């Protein structure tokens, strides 16, 4: 079925404000929920956080007080949406459990986007990044067993494998090598724009989450691991945000944001297994349709252009959370040893990369290696979930 958000009307903006009772959502069950329900919650939280932060930046660059007021109205509703979505996460979960769920999102969302991305350069950017999130999941899973004596499969439920990706120690690149080339806004497939915005937003949320929750841990190794991976999230945000064409006007970007929110709420509404959560996706879709119309009106007024010129004629195929095990294994087999040079990818450890590595590691093992040594000291083994057999790379098999 084709769904064109431009032709649909939702809930009028002046009827979108919710009271405390309506915002008081019942959290999902930390032990019994569909892991992909939790992934959808985490994704939509990242999307709403980006919506709020983008609108704030836009307001700070807007002179006309009338337009500022209009942005404030929509933004307040978006702030309520963020609260309703993120408050679906249960207080019973520890930060580390939520972290493992964040990494499951990063793995299965980025892998799916890489599979569906039509542009080869953009596809490579996602393939490159996903192998790093995949390794973060493995490191955090080992930390989790050390601190809470629990196995990450109780969270990811064997939908996602847990084993080494590109080793975290090699993710630390010279910052200039994290900047990619952007797509060209007038040639790019509309789906490519949605992909870039989605992955940029979720990685940004991950960066924010680690930078704020990392120091709440008391265990030195946990604090250090969050610091290390938190810095890699900074690299990932740089990597993905640079894919977006900076030539898009503010209003065009606003329209893209709202359109993407419609796309994702629609996608998740179609897949959701939890009826209460599904009702939230449906409600929010109906709110977003109006936010999109407001944004389109602003673009027409201030850019003098038709939003339909930059948007897809109908929503692309729904974005789906599903296992990507075979695809990830193929990448593990072929792209483990890549790094970046300028806006491209190379296999050799070039001078700038070596220099960065030398300086940041300071002649010591980074936290991501030490967590594995400490885990081995405690259990005499690693923690992995390899449901499809041994690691594709013989060098990464457990000794």
């Amino acid at each position, binding site marked *: 079925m084709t769904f064109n958000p431009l032709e649909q009307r939702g809930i009028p903006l002046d009827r979108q404000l919710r009271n405390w009772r309506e915002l008081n959502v019942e959290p999902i069950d930390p032990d019994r929920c569909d892991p992909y329900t939790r992934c959808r919650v985490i994704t939509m939280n990242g999307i709403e956080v980006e919506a709020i932060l983008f609108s704030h930046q836009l307001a700070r660059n807007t002179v006309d007080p009338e337009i500022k007021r209009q942005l404030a109205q929509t933004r307040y509703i978006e702030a309520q949406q963020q609260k309703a979505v993120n408050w679906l996460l249960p207080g019973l979960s*520890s930060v580390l459990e939520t972290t493992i769920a964040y990494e499951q999102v990063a793995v299965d969302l980025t892998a799916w986007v890489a599979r569906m991305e039509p542009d080869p350069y953009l596809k490579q950017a996602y393939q490159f990044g996903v192998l790093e999130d995949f390794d973060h999941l493995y490191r955090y899973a080992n930390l989790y067993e050390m601190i809470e004596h629990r*196995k990450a499969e109780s969270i990811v439920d064997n939908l996602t494998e847990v084993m080494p990706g590109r080793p975290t120690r090699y993710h630390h690149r010279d910052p200039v090598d994290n900047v990619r080339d952007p797509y060209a806004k007038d040639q790019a497939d509309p789906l490519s724009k949605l992909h870039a915005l989605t992955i940029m937003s979720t990685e940004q949320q991950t960066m924010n989450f680690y930078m704020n929750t990392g120091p709440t841990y008391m265990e030195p190794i946990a604090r250090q691991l969050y610091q290390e991976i938190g810095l890699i999230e900074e690299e990932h945000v740089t990597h993905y945000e640079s894919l977006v064409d900076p030539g898009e006007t503010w209003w065009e970007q606003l329209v893209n944001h709202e359109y993407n929110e419609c796309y994702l709420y629609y996608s998740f509404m179609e897949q959701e297994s939890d009826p209460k959560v599904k009702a939230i996706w449906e409600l929010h879709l109906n709110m977003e349709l109006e936010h999109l119309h407001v944004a389109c009106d602003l673009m027409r007024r201030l850019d003098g252009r038709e939003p339909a010129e930059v948007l897809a004629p109908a929503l692309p195929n729904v974005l789906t959370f599903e296992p990507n095990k075979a695809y990830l294994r193929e990448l593990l087999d072929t792209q483990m040893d890549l790094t970046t040079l300028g806006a491209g990818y190379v296999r050799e450890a070039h001078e700038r990369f070596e220099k960065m590595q030398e300086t940041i590691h300071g002649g010591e093992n980074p936290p991501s290696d030490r967590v594995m040594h400490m885990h081995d000291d405690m259990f005499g083994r690693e923690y992995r979930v390899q449901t499809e057999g041994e690691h594709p790379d013989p060098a990464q098999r457990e000794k």
Partner: protein
Amino acid sequence: MSDLQTPHAGDDRSRDDDVVSLLMRQHGDIRNLFDEVEATSGEGRRDAFRRLVRLLAVHETAEEEVVHPFVRRSVAGGQEIVEDRLKEEREAKEMLAVLDDMDPDGPDFLPKLIELRRDVQMHARAEERYEFIHIRRSTDVTDLAAMAKAIKAAEAMAPTRPHPGVESGAKNMALGPVAALMDRTKDTVRKAMGGS
């Protein structure tokens, strides 16, 4: 699920010189045993449930002897924090007693168990957030280690690991009823804490 077994706290190779990290790992062990009870049936479930009951009994008793007195004594508002935790523990024990009388393969067992699991997990997270944090803040390493030693002593007297190939019923019987186990845990902990 993978066939990797996470050993119980005390059985891994941690130095166990910090009571808080030891108890946090034990909270995970309890959750793992809940998983095992849910995943099994018949004799396997009976055995897993016995081990869960024992671990809960020893863990909660040890906390009552070691953690709560410390928080009551040394933390501002500690009295109220501990009262809340004790209330939760009493409720959990009552539910445990109800479950203990039920047929583990009967239709009412699992729903009740899941209810208990949720309560126990809420209790554990509340301890981690409102008690453990104070212990680490206001205790020196010697005390942390002494408390860890007392908890380990309690754990050692009531093994809660599976006994593969052994008829576990006999061993369970040898340990006696839960109330007696709690009493013995108390004595052991008090002795280890220096008779206080």
